[in-house]
Structure formats: C-alpha cells, structure tokens
C-alpha cells in the first residue's frame, strides 16, 4: 500500500535525507523542513520503501503538500 508523506508545517526544504528505493523504518527522519530559522524533521509514518520523492533541497512547501510516497512493506 502506498502512503503519502505530507508536509506538517510550511517552510523550505532544508535537506532530503533519503533517496528513491531506500528502505525506511517508522520514525526515521526523511526530510528536514526549515521554518523561522528552525530545523524541523519529518518522520516516516510507517516501515517501507521510498517509491517517489516530490521535493528537493530549497523548495518552498505549504501545509499538506506531498513530500514523498512510501510503499508500505
């Protein structure tokens, strides 16, 4: 089952920590979003494989944009 990882708070993508094809576990840090000079990690909602990444470093993101898609294992 594919799970969308959504943006929890608006800001800039500070760094993307995973690549397409990576295996991730629940609670792994996937992306760090910078907002108000603060780095906020976004965590994996489930175990699985990253199947698609829709953002890159420096992108401006809004609430509830899709960051990436994880194929649940």
């Amino acid at each position: 089952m594919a799970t969308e990882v959504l943006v929890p708070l608006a800001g800039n993508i500070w760094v993307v920590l995973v690549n397409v094809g990576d295996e991730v576990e629940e609670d792994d840090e996937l992306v760090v979003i910078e907002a108000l000079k603060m780095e906020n990690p976004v965590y994996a909602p489930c175990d699985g494989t990253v199947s698609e990444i829709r953002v890159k470093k420096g992108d401006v993101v809004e609430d509830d944009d899709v960051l990436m898609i994880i194929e649940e294992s």
Partner: protein
Amino acid sequence: MVFFNNMGLLAVTPGMVFMWIIGLILIYLAITRQYEPLLLLPIGFGIILTNLPLSMLMEPGEGLLWRFYHYGIEWEVIPPLIFLGLGALTDFSALLSQPRLIFLGAAAQVGVYVTFFIAYSMGFSLQEAATIGIIGGADGPTTIYLAAKLAPQLLGATAVAAYSYMALVPLIMPPIMKLLTTDAERKIRMKKGRKVSAREKLYFPIIAAMVIILLVPASAPLIAMFMMGNLFRESKVVERLNETAQNSLMNIVTIFLGVSIGATMNAEVFLRKEVIFIFFLGLFAFMISTASGILLAKFMNLFTSNKINPLVGAAGVSAVPMAARVVQKVGAAADKRNYLLMFAMGPNIAGVIGTVIAAGIFISILK
C-alpha cells in the same frame, strides 16, 4: 600641567570601573553565547564609552552619543522605525487563520499589570512601575518607547533587562510550561487553520491600523509603522521598500538604538539598589506572562471541542519568534510529530500588538 588636569584617568570613580565590567560582560555574552548580539554588543560598548570621564559624549547639547540618544530615542524616532521593519518581517497568516488564538496574546499581558502593581506597592512611582511592568511584554522597542516617555531614568536598566530575558527565553519558559501542563496536554495536536488569501493579508494592515489607532490613539506611532511595514510586504509592489525596511534600515537604526541605550547607563544612574529590583521584577513579569497565556489556553479548552495545546499560550509573550520556537521544542519533546511552531506564531504576534496596546494605555493615563 594642563594636560594632566584634562586627563580622564584621574577622574575615574569606582562606580565607573564597575560599569566597564558590566559593559564587558554584555559584550562577552553577546560574542560567546550570542545572547541578542545585535543589541547587547553595541549596548555593552556604549556603557563603557559613557563611563569614560570628561569625554562629554553624553553632554546635553554637544555630545555625540547624547545626540543619538536625544534625536533617536527621546524624539521617539528609532522604536517606530524598528516597528516598520518588524511589520515588514511579519506574516500575519497564523493570526488570520486562527483568530481565537489572539486572546492568548492578551492574557500574556497580565504579567505586565501584575508587575506594575507590585512595583508600585514597593515604592516606585506610577510611571516607573509601568515601565518596569512592560518588561513582561518581552518587546524591546516597546519597552524603550515607554521608558523614554514615562521614566527615562530607568531606560537603560529596563532595556537591558528586557533584552537579556528575551535572550534567556529558552531557559526561563520551559520549566513554567512543564509545570503548568500535563503530558497529555502537551501532546494535543491542533487542527490546522484555513488557508488565508493574499487579499485578506493585504486588507488586514490597513483595517487593523485604522481600528487600533481609533481605539487606543496613544499606540499610534508604533502601530502605524508596524502596519505600514506589513503593507509594504503584502502589497507585493514595493519590494525595494519592503527589503529596505526589513534589512538596511533596521540594521542602521539598531546601531543607534544599541549604543544610545548603553550610553544612558552611567554609574550614577545605574548603580542604585532600585536597579536590582528592576531586574527581579522584570523576570517576575516575564514568568507571570508565560503562565497566564498557558492558563487562558487551558481555560478556553473547557469550552471548545477543537482543543488548543496550552503550550502555545506561552508564546503570547512577544519575543518573536524565540517564544514560538521554544513552544515547538517543548511540544516536540512530548510528541515528536507535533508541530506547534506555526500555531504558536499566532499568539506570538498577538502578543506584540497586545504589548503595544498596553503601553498605549499606560501612556494615555500617565503622561
């Protein structure tokens, strides 16, 4: 012999030496700990300068620093210009999408008035007590503005207290926040507000400026500049002015603000036991303001099903955006998937407006 008689060294007093040390400590904290370096560094240096005897730097009518102080602060030019920059830097979205959080910014002014009352009971005059109380609003330019109007002799002490405590927000606030909330409350995830349209953000500074100034005319200089800065930002057609207000102009006035505040702190004015009380009362004001924001959030939760995480109430003390960052950190410590930062910005900005209104009320009654 003329040279020796005019030499400053012989006129140095122990109090001046003590003030040099205070100046050096502020410079040290600014550099090594990065405590509000943009202000504490020039303040620290200003303190040293003003305590070098016979230099005439603060001599009314002729001293260089006196001119900065007189035309910048006494004439009330610099604090409003800082507010112009703050307005250009402020995104009102958080406030517009969750307007009920405004009241948390009002609650955080309770510390201002409680402290005002206590300071007055301790023997300070009404004007001095108001100036000390406003430290609890955690808003530097407003504190300076009010002090210059009501109690200029306290300006240095209250400004340094306000900026020091702002730098210490990450140490002062978390214990109070943890004490007053349960683990379950800290884990409350708030429902996201609606999206705010660009048109709404454009109308807001115009309407808000008119309404607030009609209501509390004494707050006009600060509110007027704040909302004009925000109009620069949201109009999207004066990017040059917006950029200048946020950066160059803000940096320029910060230089004069810092060194002028430092220059008011000469040994005779500063080394009095009242100053110690000011620091204690300022800290107390800060703590009460933090607590009252949290308590109002808990109280509002009794009446609504759309729960507020009480931690965001603590962000009602202005200190933008440090207080909001602390809320985010304390919230994430309880539940790492809880992102409170943007919710906390609402009360945070409301707190700025609340503090300006509080200052306006003091001025209209006491001036």
